[in-house]
């Protein structure tokens, strides 16, 4: 049975038919999209409470009833892991929230995370019938996904996927970000003996050290990690593959397959004058100090700069997270400096909106050209240049062009540089035979995610450069399927 036949069969289930008949489509489409309950900007901008507090069951059921359970559910093709969206949404509508969570978990190992951080407006929701055909606000698929996943977490009745009897084959996962976690889950289900090796002292990759508590509480990620543990996945922290032990060492210890999900953890700088002044730091440093090392809490040894006037350079999720973190650390004035316009910002739309509500100033079409320090070498000002949008570049975005003679100076005592990341080179450097691109990403077969070394597969940001959580997870699952194939063939030989 192919996928579309499967979807048809599911849709034909009696309960779905009944639900469709229970309400006219006209009635459904006349409902307004739910508003996510949020902590008020004034309160939340100074605290780490989660900004979005989640839908109530009534709100969720109501929103779910907007979905018309399309015969051709275009939303699914917008989701990189092809969640059976109408099936989970309709389960919410009929009040079967745990069932909805189960549907999510068929294809998505971390629904509570994705419901919070996916750029839905570019993915599932962008392909919803409402958006495509009615040109109105799409079904709030992300909010509903979060609702079902949170409901399951809070119910204490988390369904742990069934695990096949152990086949005794050891596989190692390098990196514990979403790619590695998703891979580990699928391999554990297939009966493999899975060990995740993580360089840092915490499991979760960017989900822990990057994305802040007010957007994705660590406790949410920990529940998912606990599920993996219950499935028999083992974790070893403080283990840098390529340093603590090489792939060869691990082969000797009996590991038969390797999945590299080591991410794109290296900060980029702009190489402009003054970038090494005290008070100029990468968003990775800023966020790591706070999210991984707890620098903003009482009693922690790791310090962090608490600037009064903080400027963040960049327009991605990382920039939004940094600027909103600065507010929460007590900054008086916080600004985003971005060289294109608001429309081109790669950040999730919701994050930009939240940042604006919280009082972040947006200096779009501006670019720093120099940082100016005081006599102690601490940054005090930024020389900024105005930009205008020129011709579209290869990515289809209009590229910014500097406006001559437009330079001016603004005050800042802290600058957070958030202009992108590069792949982590530690593992590739330890494997000279491994093929990498000139950007340092690992080259893989696009269908199998197998690298140039047969027992090594790779996915997530180390292959794609900076991408998204859901794409990393999708890669992890795809690699699990093809490594299983590969190892099965190997043992037959």
């Amino acid at each position, binding site marked *: 049975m192919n996928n579309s036949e499967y979807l048809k069969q599911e849709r034909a289930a009696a309960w779905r038919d009944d639900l469709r008949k229970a309400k006219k489509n006209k009635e459904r489409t006349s409902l307004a999209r739910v508003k996510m309950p949020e902590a008020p900007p004034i309160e939340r901008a100074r605290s780490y409470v989660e900004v979005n507090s989640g839908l109530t069951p009534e709100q969720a059921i109501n929103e779910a009833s907007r979905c018309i359970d399309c015969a051709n559910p275009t939303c699914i093709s917008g989701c990189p892991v092809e969640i059976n969206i109408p099936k989970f949404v309709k389960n919410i509508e009929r009040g079967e929230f745990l069932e909805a969570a189960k549907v999510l978990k068929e294809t998505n190992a971390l629904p509570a995370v994705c419901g919070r951080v996916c750029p839905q407006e570019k993915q599932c929701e962008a392909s919803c019938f409402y958006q495509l055909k009615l040109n109105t606000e799409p079904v709030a698929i992300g909010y509903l996904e979060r609702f079902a996943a949170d409901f399951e977490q809070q119910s204490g009745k988390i369904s742990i996927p069934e695990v096949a009897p152990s086949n005794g084959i050891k596989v190692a996962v390098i990196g514990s970000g979403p790619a590695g976690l998703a891979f580990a889950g699928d391999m554990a289900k297939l009966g493999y003996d899975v060990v995740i090796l993580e*360089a*840092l*002292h915490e499991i979760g990759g960017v989900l822990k050290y990057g994305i802040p508590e007010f957007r994705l509480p660590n406790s949410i990620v920990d529940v998912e990690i606990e599920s993996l543990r219950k499935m028999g996945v083992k974790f070893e*922290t*403080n*283990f*840098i593959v390529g*340093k*603590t*032990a*090489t792939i060869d060492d691990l082969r000797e210890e009996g590991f038969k397959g390797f999945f590299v999900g080591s991410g794109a*953890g*290296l*900060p980029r*700088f702009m*190489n402009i004058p003054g*970038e*090494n*002044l*005290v*008070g100029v*730091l*990468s968003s*990775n*440093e800023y966020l*790591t*100090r706070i999210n991984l*090392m*707890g620098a903003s809490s009482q*009693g*922690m*040894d*790791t*310090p962090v*700069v608490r600037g009064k006037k903080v400027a963040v350079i960049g327009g991605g999720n990382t920039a939004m997270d940094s600027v909103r973190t600065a507010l929460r650390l007590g900054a008086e004035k916080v600004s985003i400096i971005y060289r294109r316009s608001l429309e081109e910002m790669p950040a999730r739309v919701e994050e930009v909106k939240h940042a604006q509500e919280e009082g972040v100033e947006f200096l779009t079409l501006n670019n720093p050209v120099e940082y100016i320090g005081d006599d*102690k*070498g*601490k940054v005090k000002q930024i020389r900024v240049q105005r930009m205008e949008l020129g011709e579209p570049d290869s990515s289809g975005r209009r590229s910014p062009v500097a406006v001559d003679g437009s330079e001016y100076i603004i005050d800042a005592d802290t600058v957070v540089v958030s202009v992108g990341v590069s792949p*982590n*080179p*530690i593992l590739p450097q330890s494997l000279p035979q491994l093929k990498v691109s000139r950007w340092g990403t690992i080259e893989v077969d696009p269908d199998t995610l197998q690298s140039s070394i047969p027992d090594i597969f790779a996915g997530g940001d180390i292959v794609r450069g900076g991408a998204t959580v859901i794409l990393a997870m999708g890669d992890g699952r795809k690699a699990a399927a093809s490594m299983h194939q590969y190892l099965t063939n190997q043992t037959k030989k």
Partner: protein
Amino acid sequence: MNKVISKHYYSENVVSLEIEAPRIAKARRAGHFVMVRVGNTGERIPLTISTANVERGTITLVVQKVGVSSRKITELEVGDEVTDLVGPLGQATHVENFGTILACGGGVGVAPLLPIVEELKKAGNKVISVIAARSKDLIILEDQIRQHSDEVIVMTDDGSYGKKGLITEGMEEVINREKIDQAVIIGPGIMMKFAALTTKKHNIPSIASLNTIMVDGTGMCGACRVTVGGKTRFVCVDGPEFDAHEVDFDEMLMRLSGYREDEIKADEQYLCVSKNKGKA
């Protein structure tokens, strides 16, 4: 995991700890370091692997108390476990037979210098070591350095031991009497700056091992960045050793001071809390 096997005091403020870490002991080379975190509120700090014993599966760290985190490490006792220990990190020292080596260690910098001296000696070099500190009780590892050196000159600022004077004076003395093929410089930033100026004056190729502030130690944060030969480099992954004549030491010193006020405050608070605990 990471159990402290033995502990030794070189002075009130300098302690050596032998820690169980079989994988690191096996993988490490001279010049490598580890990141260490003590307790769940601790920060991650870099420490050079002074020596390792593959059979015993241990590494030895020599730690000087300068602030909260180094203090917490020196307060570990035999049997305690180090919460987090990861490595070996950084690029290993490039070792070959250069001829005559001038090895310069200031203060606790003698700890990271030791494994390098050992390797250089093994590679057939003639090694002349100059170790220096403010006063006698801050001179560490003298016997171990002697074991692997052809000659050792000890300098103290106050003349309480060895010769009186700065490390650069001891260096000049050697340079003036024989041809040096390569210098290795490790110590406080200010000492490295002047030692590098001294070898530069005499055109002696020199490497310095830099001790910048670090957070992760794996290339992820950029806190450790320095300018070397006009280019930004990350000490944790590209270093810690660089051509001493190319390093912008002034910038490095400036960046080291970035968190000084916070650190002094944290240390005072910590001391205050531990004193109160002692009373309770």
